[in-house]
């Protein structure tokens, strides 16, 4: 996680295993929940078979509904190795994983 931008190191991280049935409203709920613990910055990691940046279509309304938080969105390829690497890197960082 050395590659994170400085402000992302203070962020709450949300990992999303992207799928057709993923409810992105849950991510907003999680952000509101984390903000009650003092978080104002969020990094959303999307693990998706859909290539970058096309996967952002599903996150558009989440981005549009936000005016309060700093949000960073990162794309990761859909592979077991990539997922392991990401979750390993987030071990000591506050985060939540959404699988579906």
């Amino acid at each position, binding site marked *: 996680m050395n590659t994170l*931008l400085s*402000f992302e190191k203070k962020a709450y991280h949300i990992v999303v295993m992207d799928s057709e049935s993923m409810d992105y409203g849950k991510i907003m709920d999680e952000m509101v929940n984390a903000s009650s613990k003092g978080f104002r910055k969020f990094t959303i990691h999307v693990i998706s078979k859909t290539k970058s940046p096309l996967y*952002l279509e599903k996150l558009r309304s989440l981005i549009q509904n*936000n005016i309060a*938080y*700093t*949000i960073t969105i*990162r*794309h990761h390829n859909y592979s077991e190795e990539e997922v392991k690497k990401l979750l390993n890197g987030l071990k000591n960082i506050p985060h939540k994983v959404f699988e579906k």
Partner: protein
Amino acid sequence: MMSNHHGKEFLGFLATGPALNMPEELWLWLGAPKPKVDGEGKPIEAPYGMRKVEAKLLEAGFRVAIVDPDHLHKHLDSMRILMLGHHDYFAYGPPSSEWWMITGKEPINRVSFRKLMESPAVKKAKEKGVKIIAGGPGAWQWLWELEYWRKWGVDLVVEGEVERVIVDIVEKALNNEPLPDYIYVGPQDSPSIEEIPVIKGASVNGLVEIMRGCPRGCRFCPVTLRSLRFIPLEKIREEILVNLRAGIKGVLLHSEDVFLYYAEGVKPNPKAIMKLHKLARELVGEEGAIGWSHLTLSTVKYAEEKYGLVSKLMDEIILTDKQRFIGVQVGVETGSPRLAKLIMPGKAAPYPPEKWPEIVVDAFRIMHENNIIPAATIILGVPGEKPEDVVKTAELLDELKHYRSLIVPMFFVPMGAMKNLDWFRRNNVKAEHIEVMLKTLYHSTFWAEEIMSKYYLHGAKMAPLRIMLKLFIRYVKHRVNKLKPELEKLLRH
């Protein structure tokens, strides 16, 4: 597209429309002529937001330069990151989207941007591994153009104020570290006054920011989401001097409401405003022009009625033998107190929103009497708008017809706290909207000729531009008169 719009920034509105009844090159010359550049293609005047990013990166020790898009090819050998800034990349903002909707033609700002991204210089840069980072006020539009984003290989889109994050982003990009796809910089990461750098090169038409953010909280406006900060006089002085040294003859004071400089809440601080303008006049001299970007109509009324501030400023500082007027953008938005209360409850303050139409008329009168020429906007199709609200706007326009001004209707574009709501579309246009659009057209074309001849474009140097614009206005009038019977039929039904 980079331009100083002949030194008349309001001509920039033409660059948001498609070329109408004339070749694209001529339209661009009218609204956005090519900027003056040095041998390397660096413009003498550059957009202010880009100048801020440039200054931040220069202070951090990077080699950075603003280059006119036509000269990018000169820098292919040294370029590592191509940073894009745009107010309206894809013509989704107001009034581009409205031009597009009415004429059915792609606005020229969108056409020009696409040409740039598909130019050999940008393609070559991408092939060489140059990273592309897009930002600026129009950054949000990329979320609706994901195919172009992919096709052109944009690496990162950043939305919001970037002073606090840009150095970090550029370092990572130069180190070839993975960048996020999208960053929205929230209000808690807005830069402090100390973090906002002084520009190092001249800005378009001498624009200098005097404050950031706005306390009024209008729901359709993105600026109001930012925290309110006042730029100290010392920094303003430095930036005016940067512009004067580059040969710019005046200063354009930029704020969402110039009269709120160091205000307490929404009540103007006359001492601070006088001091700011005295400084500006002292620096630009009697020969130079002082300009304003925006004012709020309630502040105009309050400042004049409570302190006589508008006439004092105009008589004692702004008007000279050389400067005979000042232009400014203002927001009327609606003539309906009900709608005003709903979408912009703070815009009328310190008066109640119920008095909004009266405030607008009083402010227009005050401006007319003091040689202030407003370019005003009206928003049509705001979610929650009812036909009776639009009728009230039409009635207000009747009351404004005696006052020298330009009034432009704009269709609602979801931004600010309303950015999650739906766009106003062509099939939502009702007879009441057409009536308002026609009234604004008659109003603006009536006053435009006088404004151009006596104020805005007077003198021999401006004659070709004035003649072209007059011909264009006559063409628009002619077209509308031809369509009038059909429109009137539509209004009756």
